């Protein structure tokens, strides 16, 4: 499998507190990788470094043979709205915009026309069964509906990698599974890689491979959640 994204010797600290200590990770094209581990082990920090949201203090993050650490913040932002998709637990939709506007946002920021962006947004909303909520602001939707909109927004640019940080953390079990099934189906369908951060074995089971972190290091003891095949 061709390596699409990799991290080598990634280190990151918040003040004097180390969050990541020389972490190595690889993600192949179309591969779903679960990053697991207990709270505070550095899962989210690793996702932020890999997606270019934040820079690692040391080490390299390489995407298609390009060192993201050398890119400017603006260029990394452009990457996040073109080849990367980012999905969080909550708080990612703009509360003042409608669902359709939220989903169309990455295209609009990239300079697409309003009509074209809206058409694309509508098709994604319908695919995720929330087409009837196009004109509704996030505050008037349920958590599951909001998360489907967020998925639609993350996927509208047809990214090659989707970064999902506890994407079902704020949802009930049934809704969470529906959302995750949707994500994995689309990923398999389009050959999209997924980096899935979770502390739940049930969610990690959706992945092809599991990387477990403990105290900021990749756990080499084999004591991960162990459910991903």
């Amino acid at each position, binding site marked *: 499998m061709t390596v699409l994204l990799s991290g080598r010797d990634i280190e990151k600290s918040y003040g004097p507190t180390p969050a990541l200590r020389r972490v190595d990770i690889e993600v192949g094209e179309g591969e779903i990788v679960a990053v697991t581990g207990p709270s505070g082990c550095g899962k989210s920090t690793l996702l932020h470094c890999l997606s270019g*949201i934040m820079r690692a203090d040391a080490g390299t993050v390489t995407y298609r043979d390009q060192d993201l650490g050398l890119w400017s913040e*603006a260029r990394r*932002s452009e990457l996040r709205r*073109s080849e990367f998709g980012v999905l969080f637990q909550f708080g990612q939709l703009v*509360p003042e915009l409608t669902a359709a506007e939220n989903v169309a946002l990455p295209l*609009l*920021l990239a300079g697409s026309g*309003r009509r074209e962006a809206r058409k694309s947004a509508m098709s994604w909303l319908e695919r995720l069964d929330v087409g009837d909520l196009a004109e509704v602001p996030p505050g008037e939707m349920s958590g599951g509906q909001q998360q489907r909109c967020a998925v639609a927004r993350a996927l509208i640019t047809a990214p090659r990698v989707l970064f999902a940080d506890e994407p079902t953390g704020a949802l009930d079990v049934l809704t969470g599974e529906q959302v995750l099934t949707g994500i994995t189906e689309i990923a398999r369908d389009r050959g999209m890689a997924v980096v899935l951060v979770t502390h739940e074995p049930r969610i990690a089971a959706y992945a092809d491979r599991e990387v477990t972190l403990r105290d900021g290091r990749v756990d080499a003891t084999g004591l991960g959640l162990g459910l991903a095949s």
Partner: protein
Amino acid sequence: MKPATLLRLALAGSGTDTLRVVFTAVSSALAGLTVLSAATVIAIPELGGPDSGSDGWNSQYRSSLLAEPGLRPGVVATLLLAAVPIVALAGQCVRFGSPGRDRRLAAIRLAGATPRQAVLIAAGETAMAATVGSIAGLGVYLVLHRVLHRPYADGRLPLPTDVLPSAPEVVGILLVVPVLAGLAAVLLLRKVIITPFGVVRRARGRKPSVLPGVLIIAGVFAPLMIRPFGEWLLTQNVVRGSTAFLIGATLMIVAAIVGVVIGTGWIAYTAGRVLRRYARRPGALLAGRQLMADPWSGSRTFASLLAAVIIGAGVYAYRSYLLTMFAATKQANALAGDGGGSFYDTGFYLGAIDLINVTIGIGAVIAAIGILVAVAEGIVSRRRAYAALVAQGVPRRTLGEALAWRAFAPLVPAVLIALSVGVGLIRTPLPAVSVTPRRCGGEPTQCVQLPELTLAVPVPFRDLALIGGSALVLMTLVVGAALLVLRTSTDLEELRTG
């Protein structure tokens, strides 16, 4: 990003953003009105022909300030000076009520907006609101232009309501106010990193270097340089006497203001150290630590007010100089046997100075509103930390005390220095008035030169106390209003909301 997208995102704000937008629009309307008034004075036609120069008076106006061509530039300059803090306030509004907007910007960044696009969106909102305000200002201007067109019985006008600026000038003013407000907003956001996880203000916590100290000393001693610098300019033979004085004075005034404003950062840091060393009450100790953590926040916040204090003190010092000159002339005339009369229309000159002081007063009030905006924004952005302190049992009164200490500890010494600098700007080059009276007989050749009469220009302590007191009263009102914001911001519900 297309302009339509920028427009949509800039105007996406909800009810929580209304106050900021209203503030921006109102201050822009005021700025537009002030600049349009200045343009109206400029539009008064010069009556002097090629032979008579521009000395022809526009006798259709009762006020000499409008009728006399030589005085009109001063009126224009005063109006433009008053517009500066108003435009600055419009820009400063970008920081008011920002948590809701910050969440929106962070979400937009998460969707892939670059930091530049996020700043553009925030500045775009300011520019839009400023445009609305600017147009409203034009509306108010046109209404006032019509309503105030009431000639006196002798047919003369109280205001230049018979002229209007040209259409291109009006359009230019309508555009320049939003552009300046937008630029001010970008400038104020330059220290703000808009990240996908929220807005972070980059506080400059490091200890002020020697440079601010040097600048404040330069500011304090700048007045000493006005006369030598003007004389040096004269020796270069590139400028005329009045121009040399004008250039010298302007440069020194700017140096003094910059010195005092930047020096306030140093004062704030030093005040913080003193509080931390000697204070015993928790509020003062907290304020001391906060002042040391971000000493520049004070100089940024107080800049407009301190500039108004410096200029106000300078104007009162000049008033004192004029009064001394009138007194000296009167005494000289008495000695010369002219009965102690004066050639000067003292009422006119003092009236003009009072008018300038009224403008400066308005500027100071607007600067105080700007300070309130900044202080309130600071409270709101720290509301969760404050709410957490209250939840842990810290009395709100302690937080209020810290707020007051943080405001007054740097402001009181800064105002004293600003007053000294303002007076020094005038009094240092013009410490006394000297007149040589001449007693004449029937023929001019029979004139006898009497001993020179010299009167020292007194320091206008009463007026300075008034200015300093007014600045502190304004600040007290600001702190009072900020305490109300603090009360609502320390509601324990804040711990449960974003």
